[in-house]
Every structure is written in structure tokens, then in C-alpha cells.
């Protein structure tokens, strides 16, 4: 049976080192944290993908032990973090989840630790608290940054020019800087070449920053330096929304790839040539799969993202390891929270099948992304996905974006709130 929450927390504990679970410390080798007795799946990452994979495996098969390893004791959602940056939300509490109910309701064993290595041959992960063995591994670490493609952008520069592309302190920092900026100031935002986490995310952010400036600092503006040739998602809708609401505030400049930053001079360089200065600078750097996936050799020829089987999400690089969420290449499915949620369920179902020697099932997936244009209007993109000839495709003649005339924008802003509530509840209960 499942451990009750208290004894499990005591055993694995976010707290003092879980000494009770440690057996036979070996010299020069991390001690085994939780010896494996039954069938076990280890999940790396407690975000949009990892929580759902962990929960659904347990929902479908209580005979499989699930250990979810996450470096933090809570998770802050990127979705809706732009509303906080724009001052529509006053704090991050509605975007923050804990893992206690997920553990209590489903018997998921949550370990707060950093995963530092994966040994695919030994089926073992090394964490900051010791090693953990697995039968199958789910890797859902989200993204990390390709800092080598953004000269001058190091951890110190991030404190001056926040990315806010992982929600939490960075989000708070960007908000603080906007609040502190003088009226008449210039905000600069850089957008990397696709693919990156959340295609419409930068444009929603520009909208929310413009919303804040319009109401509070009307002499200010935001310059968007986009490496892409055009807005990468919901382009028509963003352009109309900006024209109707933020004319003279959003200065959108396509095909401007920022390759270098100067945190001291508060400037960014387009292709190392054109300098653009700002009072607040939001650098969204190019991205790749979370570092642990790179270190474990799960990325493909592009060295950035992890190729996987379209139905099982098993890595094509390493047997027994599945990659879901932003880190993987999921064909037509974009790098979004909804996709990560949907992929996690497909992966969970097929892991349960594989571990029970049963036939696997073809993927059926959904993505929906709501983006706010103003505090009361949102637009969406939605699609249904299936597998054809081994590839994930959008089902023809389905999906699409909101009506071009914004006739549904007010109601979608209302539905979007319920979406967030439901998806975060899914992840945390």
C-alpha cells in the first residue's frame, strides 16, 4: 500500500538529509537513497510534464512505485506569469503549487533533490542526496539556456537583465524593474529564433508590459527585437490587438537577432552590429533541453532537443528513458504547458503498458494556449494531435486560432482562468 503522507515525508523528506533511508555508503560513490524493491519509475522534474506523468502512472497502476525528483519544494507556473509582470496579478500565489497532495492522494514519492547524472546502462540516477535506481525513467526537466549564443549573458547579467523565462525570482525581478522605471523609459525585449518554450509567450509578455505602461507610464515604450522573421504564433491576432490597444507603445522589430548583451551599458547588440539601449531589458535567450538531458546524451543531432518515439516518448538515443515536455521533439506539438500535460499522459499510459508487457497505444493529444492581450481579453490557439507514419501531426481540418475580430476575446479571458485552475489542480492533487 501507499505510504501515508507523514511517514513518507519523514522518510524522503525535503528536510534533513533522509538519513534513515541511506544504506551502505560507498567510498567515492553516492549512497543509494531508496533501495528499489518493486517495479519503479523515476521522474525527473516536477513541472507541467513530470507531475502529470507521475500521477497518471499511479492512477493506472498502483503496482508501480513512482519517485518524482524535483530540485525545488514548490513550482511556479510560467503560464499566467506574464499577467503578474503586467500588474494584472498582484502576487504569484495563484501560480504556485506544492507536492504534498500529489504525494498523499496518489502515493507519488517526492524527493527534493538535484539530479546530477543519469546512468542509462545501470538504470540509476545520481542526485544531490544519493542514487536512485529505476526500471524506466521519465525526463521532464524543461529548458535551459544556450548562453554561448548570447555573449555577455551570464548569471550575473541575468540579475541585471532578467529572462523571466523560468517563473519565480526572475519573474519578480522583471516586475520590480518595470515598477521602478521612470515614465518615458524604454523597455527592450529580445526573442530567440524558434523553437523555444511557448511560441506565443514573448508576444503575450509584450502585451502585458504594454498594458502596464499604458496605464502607469504612458510616455514609455517597449521595443521587441525578434530574431524570427515574423511573430511566431497567433501573428494576426497579436498585430490587431497591438494596433487597437498599444499603438505607439509596442515597437515590434522582426528579424533582429540579438547575439550579445552589455549589462553595464544596459544595451543589447543585434547581430553584433546595431546597439539598442533600454532602461529595462528582458533577454529571452535561445534555449535547449534542460541540462540533465544534454548531459545524459539524450539530445539529437541538433544538440538541443531530445528525439523520441511519437507514441511512447521513449528516447531514440537511450533505451528505458522517456523524455516529455519542452525538452523533447514532439513533432507538431509546440513547447507548451498544455502539450507537456498531454504528452505526459500518453507517455504514462504507454509506460504502464510496456512495464506490464502489454501492447502500446497510439498518441492522442491536445494543445491549447491562451494569451492575454489586455487584462480582460485573451486569444487562443488550439489543436488536436494524432500519429501518422510515426510522426505527431495536427489532425487535418481541426484546431486553429480565435476569431480575427476578437468577438470571443472577453469570454476567452474568463475561460483561460479556469483552464489555469484546472491544469494546476491536475498537477497538484
Amino acid at each position, binding site marked *: 500500500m501507499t505510504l501515508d503522507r507523514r511517514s513518507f515525508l519523514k522518510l524522503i523528506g525535503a528536510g534533513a538529509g533522509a538519513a534513515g533511508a541511506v544504506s551502505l555508503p560507498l567510498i567515492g560513490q553516492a549512497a543509494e537513497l531508496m533501495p528499489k524493491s518493486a517495479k519503479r519509475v523515476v521522474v525527473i522534474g516536477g513541472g507541467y510534464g513530470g507531475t502529470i506523468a507521475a500521477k497518471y502512472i499511479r492512477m493506472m497502476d498502483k503496482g508501480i512505485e513512482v519517485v518524482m525528483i524535483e530540485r525545488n519544494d514548490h513550482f511556479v507556473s510560467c503560464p499566467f506569469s506574464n499577467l503578474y509582470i503586467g500588474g494584472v496579478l498582484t502576487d504569484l500565489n495563484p501560480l504556485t503549487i506544492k507536492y504534498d497532495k500529489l504525494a498523499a492522494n496518489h502515493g507519488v514519492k517526492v524527493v527534493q533533490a538535484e539530479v546530477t547524472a543519469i546512468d542509462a546502462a545501470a538504470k540509476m540516477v545520481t542526485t544531490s542526496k544519493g542514487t536512485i535506481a529505476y526500471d524506466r525513467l521519465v525526463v521532464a526537466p524543461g529548458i535551459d539556456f544556450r548562453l554561448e549564443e548570447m555573449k555577455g549573458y551570464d548569471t550575473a547579467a541575468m540579475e541585471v537583465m532578467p529572462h523571466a523565462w523560468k517563473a519565480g525570482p526572475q519573474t519578480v525581478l522583471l516586475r520590480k524593474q518595470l515598477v521602478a522605471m521612470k515614465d518615458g523609459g524604454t523597455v527592450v525585449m529580445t526573442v530567440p529564433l524558434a523553437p523555444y518554450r511557448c511560441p506565443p509567450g514573448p508576444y503575450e509578455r509584450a502585451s502585458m508590459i504594454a498594458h502596464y505602461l499604458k496605464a502607469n507610464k504612458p510616455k514609455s515604450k517597449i521595443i521587441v527585437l525578434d530574431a524570427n522573421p515574423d511573430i511566431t504564433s497567433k501573428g494576426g491576432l497579436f498585430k490587431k490587438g497591438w494596433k487597437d490597444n498599444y499603438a505607439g507603445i509596442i515597437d515590434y522589430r522582426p528579424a533582429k537577432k540579438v547575439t550579445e548583451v552589455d549589462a553595464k551599458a544596459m544595451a543589447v547588440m543585434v547581430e553584433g552590429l546595431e546597439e539598442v539601449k533600454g532602461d529595462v531589458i528582458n533577454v529571452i535567450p535561445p534555449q535547449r533541453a534542460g541540462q540533465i538531458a544534454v548531459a545524459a546524451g539524450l539530445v539529437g543531432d541538433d544538440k538541443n532537443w531530445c528525439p523520441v518515439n511519437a507514441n*511512447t516518448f521513449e528516447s531514440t538515443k537511450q533505451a528505458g528513458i522517456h523524455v516529455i515536455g519542452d525538452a523533447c521533439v514532439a513533432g507538431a506539438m509546440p513547447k507548451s504547458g498544455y502539450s507537456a500535460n498531454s504528452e505526459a499522459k500518453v507517455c504514462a499510459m504507454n509506460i504502464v503498458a510496456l512495464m506490464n508487457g502489454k501492447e502500446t497505444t497510439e498518441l492522442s493529444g491536445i494543445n491549447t494556449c491562451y494569451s492575454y492581450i489586455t487584462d480582460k481579453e485573451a486569444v487562443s490557439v488550439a489543436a488536436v494531435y494524432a500519429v501518422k507514419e510515426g510522426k505527431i501531426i495536427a489532425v487535418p*481540418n481541426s484546431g486553429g486560432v480565435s476569431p480575427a475580430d476578437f468577438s*470571443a476575446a472577453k469570454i476567452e479571458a474568463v475561460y483561460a482562468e479556469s483552464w489555469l485552475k484546472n491544469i494546476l489542480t491536475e498537477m497538484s492533487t
Partner: protein
Amino acid sequence: MMMKWRGWALATGVLAVSALAQAAPPTAAMLSYACAGCHGTNGGSAGPTMPSLAGQSKEAIEVAMKKFKSGERSGSIMGRLAKGYSDAEVTAMAEFFSKQKLHATSQTLDKAKIAKGASLQEANCGRCHIEDGKEGKDDTPAMASQWLPYMQMQMADYLSGKRKMPEKMKEKVDPMSKEDIEALLHFYASVK
């Protein structure tokens, strides 16, 4: 044959196999899980404007999806999504959600309105919304425990003509006061 080969592959961990192996077509659970990001785990919604599907009748879901797909029922998002599924897939999902336990919502409701609604419901709505709204005649949706904000939004769409009301329901609803309709929705939301 297939199973044996896969079992062997599993045991030996041969990698190429997962690419070769044929997967079965999506099951009801595979299809339905994808809806839960918006409608909640197993269709039990935690978002007050998003309808719960858990415990909804199979016929009501099937008909709703058909109407979304054809455009007969307007929706902010369901039309775009419904077009992605075959009739057989819709039936499988409808069956899946109809088998889930009714989702108990905790929402603030007005006691006086509930009582008033209770006195009105049988005569006005009970012909189709049967068993206090726990069930529906034919394709009539169940409304017990449904989110009040969702039902209010739907009722507003009916009254504005955006969503087409069934003739016989319209006959009952049209003469009613706003207050009585509001009371009825509080009643249905309160039924466990």
C-alpha cells in the same frame, strides 16, 4: 506473435523495436485524458466557468460534440477541438466521462434561491432535466453539481440566442423571470 516479439524486445531492451512496434489505436482513456487539462482530471472541473464532464450522460456529450463540430452550438474553443475527432472517438470519450463519478463542486450558493429553485424545477424543467437534474431525458444534459458560473454563462447564451434553445425548453424558459431562472440554476448546482 506481435506480443511475444514485443515481450522479448522489452526483456532485452532492444531499442529499435519501439519504432517498429505497431501501437493500438487510441483507447477511450487515451482520448479522454487529453481533455482533462481544461475539464479536470477524469472530467471533474476545478474551474468555475469550465463545465465538469464527470458523470455527464453519454448522449448529452455525444450530441454536444456533434453540435460543436457542425457549428450548430457556438463555443469559444470546443468547435475547433471537436473537429479533430471521429464519431467513434467521440462516443468512446462520451462513454468514458459518463462512467466517472459525479464531481462534487464546492461553490457558494444562495440558500433562499436553492429553495425557490427546488419549488420551481419539477413543473418547469423536470420533464427533461429529470431526477433533480441528476439525469437527463435522451440527450438532455445532467446539471446536478455543475458549476453555477458555467450554467449562468450558458443560460445567457440561450437567452441572447447565441446558443439555440430546444423549442420545448424555450416555451418554459421564455415566460420565466430572471430571478426564477437564477434560482433554478442555484438549485441544480446544489444537487449532490
